[in-house]
């Protein structure tokens, strides 16, 4: 994003920026901090600049990474899915991606609203890769890995700041304590936040085994969540 010289310094755009990247400069015009800007285009699309001073910049690699992880309606070329993750459990009634006895992890890095440097995403993916975790091949972050076995990201994207990304993988239930511990450790080493989500298939009797483990170990989980109601067709066999 760029704010051109036609800016009249009205400050209208400033509160719309989710990254707090816009400020008034000494010249009394609005300026965008290039490091903080995650190319989400909220200022361009929503703020209604009275003089149309905000323009979309033609981005070049690796800055294009910011745009693709921030612009909601743009689908990723490799998955045809818009957003920053995959279909995960939302289509599990049709895909059968998560089976009984498996736990899917979706780690919303940078959320809520903090953003992250991709080098922090790499810290987390490399810590998890040491446990033998296999990252979801269709996840957009996995496409930025130069080595999926080690979780190493491409060197040329490590200087980029993005709105969020969602490392995704699934494990067998018995591996949960090990992965949980690794996430606790890496959470102290990163300069951002993540919102942690788990995906599971509900047992035919309505029980959810992971709840028992979380309750026994006094691990916090929210009372609200997402439920796939199982009416997608054709239904996957379980």
């Amino acid at each position, binding site marked *: 994003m760029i704010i051109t010289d036609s800016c009249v310094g009205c400050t209208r755009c400033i509160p719309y*920026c989710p990254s707090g990247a816009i400020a008034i400069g000494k010249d009394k015009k609005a300026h965008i901090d290039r490091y903080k800007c995650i190319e989400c285009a909220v200022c361009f699309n929503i703020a209604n600049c009275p003089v149309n001073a905000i323009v979309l910049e033609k981005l070049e690699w690796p800055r294009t990474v910011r745009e693709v992880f921030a612009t909601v309606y743009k689908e990723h070329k490799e998955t045809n*899915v818009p957003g920053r993750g995959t279909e995960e459990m939302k289509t599990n009634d049709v895909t059968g991606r998560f089976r009984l006895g498996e736990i899917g992890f979706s780690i919303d890095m940078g959320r809520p*609203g903090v953003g992250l440097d991709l080098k922090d995403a790499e810290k987390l993916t490399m810590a998890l890769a040491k446990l033998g975790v296999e990252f979801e091949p269709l996840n957009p972050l996995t496409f930025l890995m130069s080595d999926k076995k080690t979780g190493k990201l491409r060197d040329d994207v490590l200087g980029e700041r993005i709105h969020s990304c969602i490392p995704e993988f699934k494990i067998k239930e018995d591996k949960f304590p090990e992965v949980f511990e690794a996430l606790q450790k890496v959470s102290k080493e990163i300069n*951002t936040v993540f919102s942690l989500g788990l995906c*599971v298939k509900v047992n035919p009797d309505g029980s959810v085994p992971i709840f028992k483990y979380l309750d026994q170990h006094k691990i916090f989980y929210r009372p609200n969540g*997402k439920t796939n109601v199982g009416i997608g*067709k054709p239904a996957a066999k379980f």
Partner: protein
Amino acid sequence: MTHTLHRSGTVESLSIDYPILVIAAQGINSKNSAPQFRKALEILLKHNPVNIGDMKTGNYFRKGLKPVLLSTKENSIIHSVFTNRKDLEECLKELRDAQLGPSVVVSGMLAEVWDSLKKIGLKPHSLNISLGVWGKTSLLPEQSILDITTMCGHHCVSPLLVKKMVSDIKRDKISIEEAARELAKPCVCGVFNPLRAEQLLEDLIRK
């Protein structure tokens, strides 16, 4: 894409917040699904939603109803937000009976959603739960702001905009209802709940 999972707030506040999402599995039932998404939108609209949108087009508050309804695609992901269980249940019944193909996901208080599913003869198939926010939480804005901004899971609603709206309401520049609608605009998908936002803004103004 766990963007309606991590909505924060009190149990009371979350009890007027039920987003529904309709999505096809790419490569399995996505082909020729655009008309099915339109039918799903028509069903959602019949049950008093407070927001509606398509991740590929935008939300009602920014785009208006017609563009959302007429622009469905094979990789659309459509959303709607309901504020009570009766509307949610009636809507889910109709979606079930329509046998459209794409998957349907409901967000909200799990005990309440599961009770509603039981009432209408549906069973939870798969579940996505939130273990909260980890890492350097000192970087987060205050919880009362997060309760509003987390209603846009992609975090396109800025904490600064919430503060601006509170300030504008206090100075009588804008009504609470107008402020809630303004906050709903950046949330492309249409999962922001403006009715809940009005209540949360009222709490912020009283502070």
